[in-house]
């Protein structure tokens, strides 16, 4: 199928884009287009106006200041995958991104696009949740900061106003020696996960876990943090017993179901993937140490 007709605007500056969004009816923002273009072609999305923000150069880039990372919303997934600063400060990004779609979609797809599309199983929203990222949105009226926890409004719908553009994602890097892993269960390589799990944890000088974050994708309407499991890890010695106990907490979450996968199966996978993520993170450390 071919897209239905729309008027096309390609502003060069953020201000122009914001002015357009403030004045146009039934407008959509075109970021990397790796979801929207398919929806346009299938006529699932039929905007009257399309505001293409690919030409706004200052929306892309990765910077760091005092341990706080700032990623422009239009930074391509392939750039994130290969960026050495990001790899150094938050290596879980590369591990997760290699499971995002395919080379061709990562070359175009952006972090902001993925966050705003907000597929429940998508990796980048899960990472934003994992890091308690702050999302910066701009409108003609000004700028506001949304904590990622408040960003999902409904299923696949961000808490953005029609005249707002997500401009960047900020988050604090974890300590250099933190442990991390991002694992997925999907039917095919590059598919959206049925369940994905990401984790970060760091140890105290005594070798017990002092800080932990775990996120699940594909389970609820939006990525969810496993606060109970995270808490259960604090003070524990990393290892099988602690990981299994934490993973058990994942079983009790409320999972969605669809025509293919039951809630029960997703809950079970949540337990498995949480345990595997924690184990992978720790095993990697052991292997390096060995």
């Amino acid at each position, binding site marked *: *199928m*071919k*897209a*239905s*007709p729309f008027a096309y605007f390609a502003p060069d500056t953020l201000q122009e884009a914001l002015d357009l969004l403030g004045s146009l009816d039934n407008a959509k923002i075109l970021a990397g287009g790796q979801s929207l273009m*398919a929806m346009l072609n*299938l*006529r699932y999305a039929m905007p009257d106006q399309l505001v293409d923000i690919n030409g706004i150069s200052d929306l892309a880039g990765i910077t760091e200041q005092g341990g706080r990372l700032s990623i422009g919303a239009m930074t391509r997934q392939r750039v994130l995958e290969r960026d050495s600063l990001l790899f150094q400060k938050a290596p879980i990004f590369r591990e997760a991104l290699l499971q995002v779609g395919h080379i061709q979609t990562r070359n175009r797809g952006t972090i902001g696009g993925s966050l705003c599309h907000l597929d429940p199983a998508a990796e980048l929203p899960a990472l934003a949740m994992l890091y308690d990222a702050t999302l910066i949105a701009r409108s003609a009226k000004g700028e506001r900061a949304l904590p990622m926890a408040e960003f999902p409004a409904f299923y696949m719908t961000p808490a953005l106003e029609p005249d707002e553009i997500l401009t960047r994602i900020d988050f604090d890097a974890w300590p250099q020696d933190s442990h991390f892993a991002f694992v997925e*269960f999907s*039917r*095919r*390589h*590059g*598919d*959206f996960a049925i369940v994905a799990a990401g984790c970060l944890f760091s140890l105290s000088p005594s070798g017990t876990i002092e800080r932990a974050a775990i996120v699940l994708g594909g389970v609820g309407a939006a990525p969810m943090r496993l606060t109970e499991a995270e808490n259960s890890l604090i003070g524990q010695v990393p290892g099988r017993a602690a990981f299994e106990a934490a993973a058990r907490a994942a079983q009790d979450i409320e999972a969605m179901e669809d*025509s*293919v*996968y*039951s809630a029960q*199966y997703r809950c*079970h*996978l949540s337990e*498995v993937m949480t345990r595997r993520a924690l184990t992978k993170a720790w095993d990697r450390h052991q292997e390096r140490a060995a």
Partner: protein
Amino acid sequence: MDPRFIGQSVRRQEDDSLLRGTGKFVDDLDPHGLTHAAFLRSPVAHGRIRSIDTSFAAQVPGVIAVLTLADLRPVLTSDRLPVQFKSDGLPPNIGPYILAKEEVVYVGETVALVIAESRAIAEDAVALIDLDIEELDPVTGCQQAVQPGAPKAALDRSNNIYAQFDMGYGDVDQTFADAAHRVSLALVQHRGGAHPIEGRGVLAHPDPMSGQMTVWSSTQQAHEARGFLIELLGLDETLLRVRTPEVGGGFGAKYLLYPEEVSVTAASLLLGRPIKWIEDRREHFLAAIQERDQFWDVEAACDASGKLVGIRGTMIHDGGAYVPQGVNLAYNAATAVPGPYDLPNYKLSVQAVATNKVPTIPVRGAGYPEGTFVMERVLDALADAAGLDRIEIRRRNLIPVSAMPFSTPLKSRSGSGITYDSGDFHAMYEQALKEIDLDGFADRKAKAAQAGLLRGIGVACGIKGTGRGPYESATVRIGKSGKVTVFTGAMPMGQGLKTALSQITAESLGVDPGDITVVCGDTNTISLGLGGFASRQTVVAGSSVSVAAKAVRDQALHIAAGLFEADVGDIELVDGMARVKGTEIQTSLKELAKIAGGSPGYSLPTGVTPGLEATEYFMPTGLTYGMGVHAVELEVDAETGAVTLQRYVVVNDCGRAINPKIVVGQIHGGVVHAIGNALFEFMGYDEQAQPTTTTLADYLMPTAPEIPRIDVHLAEYPSPLNPLGVKGVGEAGCLPTAGAIVSAIENALGAKNNMIQRIPVMPQDLFQFIQQGKQSSAA
């Protein structure tokens, strides 16, 4: 004479243009004045059309016409497509409408078409057609279809049964009474769509100069399409030509003349303009044929040694809303059950029924994968019941080479007997076990267990009749240019058929295969043809080409012998020359063609007939059967239900391989298609028979990381039924795949009693089985 080109993996003549991007597919054709079609399709599975208001759509700028069945009727001789494969006892009204008349019977059925200056504009207008439909209850599944009080899938039929028939031989009931072991199975089999990466497509191109309509179609059957089109449009062969450009895969979906091809051609006749319709992927999900569902309830019995004594049961086949090829799918599946095994007694009651889903005709495999799966599941169950090894029970039941040729009491769809013509099944079976290193399996299983994975092995066999007749056409010609050209009604859609036919021709004529032009899919170049189905083309067209090329060779030798005053036996054809053996005396094929072409007013040399050309229609006396053995090793992740294929071995009998590399490629493709059927591909419908998998993100075709290396070994047991000794392999790879994989999964889980009775096997189902297994072993 030693073969020079047959049996060699010569370079494919198809490759160069395809690798440069210059090969032309139907959507690449762009004649002057081209217009584009888009279809309004039924949004509901079953309904009565109250009205179709096209007035708004017709006003869209760029729209040329909005057409319903009533608008096309002036150029049509019938409202419906005929049934392609007729058989006795079929009810009337089972062929699709060209555009819906008063009723719609599946989501996606063509209702109206828009012709516009661009496809996008045509789609804009389609959205503005006001279709008022009274929804009717749909038949959503074939088991429901035969229940009392079920809605009718189509109002003009008396019930939902297309056909019911019994198939079998022997006295099953008697033998069951005395059998040592009996098992019963309820198997649910699903095979989805064909999904060539190029969808269907048609370009109807009227030529005002000649008055001839040329229909370019991405089809597997140019001549069949022409036959139906001239009938439906009331034309004759001089007025309508069907041509195929490059065809981007078919897999069964393109062996049918569809409503879209007829309505686009009819519209072009009406409007006098070239019109192109290109199927998009969503349309392929909604309206291209599928194979879909079969429900089998079977019992099987064996003696104390594990020898089969009988299989009996019932099967219901979901034919969908129309069965444009009759009941061939259900029939094939039923005849496929005995497979390469000696089954003494067999009885199956079959019902092919209507549902409000996409029509069905064969997808690559054509019912044989389903019948094969039943037998392989039966053997696993009987082995478990008899306490035998699953690999051993197959050995005990395979037909021995001493019984070849082996006739089963069954008849093929055409009414001819089923006779396995050659092959040593036991030798192939043992080779497969050796190639997969059965002896080393225990070690590999133990190693996998250390990583927490369950490793299993499975072996399965299958056999399919190939090379269906009644004939295929071939003309081999050496023109006055000296160029060798082959014309045939056979239809390539990726198999490398042109290369294979060029090799066969080159064998007789001593020219480089790469210098031979093979013309397929043009009804103006040869009068008859049947096209690409039933793994038939190298067998039937190859044989026609072989015989015709030999005849041309004889003509050439005769002329050369006369020219050189030598014996025919002393002439050889080498490198495009006719030469007296062991001498420098020679002339080119071009000169011989000129001699055979004659000069105006002068006699041809004595004994020379006009032209260096011959036409042959090889008519096979029976189907030729190539057996295949598949052995697979896989690992199951018991925590998730994920299956990872690790090793895959195929031993397949191809008769004589014309081009081994091409043969192996065919097997690769068939295996992977069937891996999709076994583990991934599922065409979903909801409770209103609305398709729920309409994108390639929802319908999971296998991609490269999911596929293991496939180690193919060709067994060459020449067929006695054709001059080349070849057997078809286009579908062979599809047959034993699901049986081998499912058996291996159960082997990995240490399961007995055939817990897996449904394909595709989904990870959540396996997880359930594993959990149940844990519970029952704990209890």
